[in-house]
């Protein structure tokens, strides 16, 4: 079995994270913004798993399990907010919800 070098894993994680950031900043649809956050979380998780494999430690995988749990919780709250937003404003455009403008 060939060992994948850590550098490759980290480069892939960085690319995924960057895609997530760009998606978050560019998209206006709330659901796509949530998906982008999910991508960023997974990029971080990948980096943890890769590092854990590199140093032969279980910690990386434990951290990934935490991230997974947190992501599930975040999505459940996020989707509930999205539903309320749609009921209230009949749109999924995040910029339409600017009632908190000072």
């Amino acid at each position: 079995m060939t060992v994948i070098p850590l550098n490759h894993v980290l480069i892939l994680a960085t690319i995924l994270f960057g895609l997530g950031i760009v998606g978050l900043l560019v998209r206006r649809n709330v659901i796509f913004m949530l998906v982008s956050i999910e991508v960023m979380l997974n990029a971080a998780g990948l980096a943890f798993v890769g590092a854990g494999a590199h140093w032969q430690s279980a910690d990386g995988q434990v951290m990934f399990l935490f991230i997974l749990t947190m992501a599930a919780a975040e999505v459940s709250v996020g989707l509930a907010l999205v539903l309320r937003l749609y009921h209230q404003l009949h749109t999924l455009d995040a910029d339409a919800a600017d009632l908190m403008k000072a």
Partner: protein
Amino acid sequence: MRELLWLIPILPLAAYVTLGVIGRRLPRWAVAVIGFVPVAASCGIAVAVASPYLSGQTSEPYVQVLWSWLQVGEFQPQIAFYLDPLSVVMTLVVTGVGSLILLYSTEYMDEDEEYSRFFAYMNLFVASMLTLVLGENLLVLFLGWEGVGMCSYLLIGFWYKDPDNGRAAQKAFIVTRVGDAAMLVGLFLLLSELGTLHIPLLMDRATAQWAVGAGLPSAAAALLLGGAVGKSAQLPLQVWLPDAMAGPTPVSALIHAATMVTAGVYLIARMHTLFLLAPIVLLLVAIIGTVTLLISGFSALVQRDIKRVLAYSTISQIGYMFLGLGVAAWSAAILHFMEHAFFKALLFLAAGVVIHALDDEHDLLKMGGLRKRLPFAFWTFLIAGAALAGFPILTSGFYSKDLILYSALVSSHGGFWLWLGGVVGVLLTGGYIFRLIFLAFFGELRREIGRLPRIRMKIPLIVLAVLSIVGGLFQIPRSLGGTPRFSNFLKPALGALPSGSLTIEATSELISSGAAILGIFIAYLWFLRRPKQVSHGALPAVPEMLQRYWFVDWGLDWLYDRVFVRPFVYIAHINRKDIVDRPFRRLEWIMAWTWRGFRITQTGRVSWYAVCVIGGVVVLLSMVVL
């Protein structure tokens, strides 16, 4: 028995708290009971507590320490009550006259909407006044001093819906505040120089440390005199008292005639050792008293409002007390305080009957002929008026006033001119009070009368009328073969009266009796013999200009308005943008602009916040990495 001393001020205070908290929900009879009974009980306890002194068993001061008020290094004032012959007299008068006036008020204020508020304030007043006269410490005395001032303010403005009453209340409060400020500085001076405010200790240290006529005792005495002048409405701070008549009549009787306004007299008598160290200030006290009694006597001659006549008369009579104090005849001043409390309270209460019967009419010229319709008020008013005028032999006012005049003549601090001023004052007193009686009770009836006094208003009038007559028996002069019982009673606390020869005493009495009768006779000539005069109440044979001048109390209000009020208002007007506030305004302006800047960043858009977060992270990371 004397352990009950603390109950005397506490009972009215408890009544105040009760009425203040639940008074509005109580029925009227309950309010009347709670308003009157505690003060009457205080009076009973006062008699019991005072009995060892009254029966001559003891004259030693009795001190009851309740608790320590505060402790600041050496300065440890205690809440303590001090009972000696002087405070016995004061306490008995305050509780005795106070309970009579409260009994009267239960009927007088019967139709007032805010029955319970009235009795709450009156009880607070009695409690404060008792704290004032019983306090062992000048700080406790000052607590009572300010307490009575506040109650005076609250009760002058009792009918606050009329803005004029509110203004009168504020005037009383502010003018007395001028004196109180001086008094407070005096207390600071005594504290810093002698290290205590405990009165007996203070007197001991003052005699030990200060020489007679030195600068410090004179300054301290002068500052205390400032407080006394403000509270007791003497020249130049007497302008508040006539306006204070805006309050209900029982208030005028209790606070602005019988008790509170004599607090200054009490203060000086209590601190007399200090005043003896300052002969210049003592002379000033006598001069202030004499001048005040004269100018207020003239002012009282031409007033048209029945209560204002009595107010000027009060100022004038307190002038007599100051004259007595100024010539070091301390117990003569206290005797006059006591007699004055009886007959002046009676005058006000009888005037209250008249005002009640005429449906709140105060104008003397609209009265007249009330003798037949209100015989009860007439006879009591006549007794009190005669006592005020010092009608010889029969009335109590004669004895106390003559004692002051005679002391002024023979005292080493007195003099002929002070005596002469006092005698002219007797003439004026007889004149103005009988002018009032002739205008109000004689002549033809001008208006129909309404309410007549019932039993609760009659009892206090009868008791006070009896006291106004027999009050003289406390001190029968030597020339009439009596013994000076009252001044002997006060001797342990206040020292002996100045003494002189019997001939001088008899001569002084004869002359002042003559002056009193002459004053009454002139009033009779001008206002009873000539009915025409009665119709406009002015004095014949006195230039009209002068009378108008007297009517406005020698223009003092006008003067103070020009000298103090208007410049003050003018300065306030110039400074209405408030120079002191400028830096703070600038601070506010900077805040406002910063706020505007930050406001722009709060767009409310999620994506904008995301950009900010990411930007922030990038900046922070690059700071860490680089």
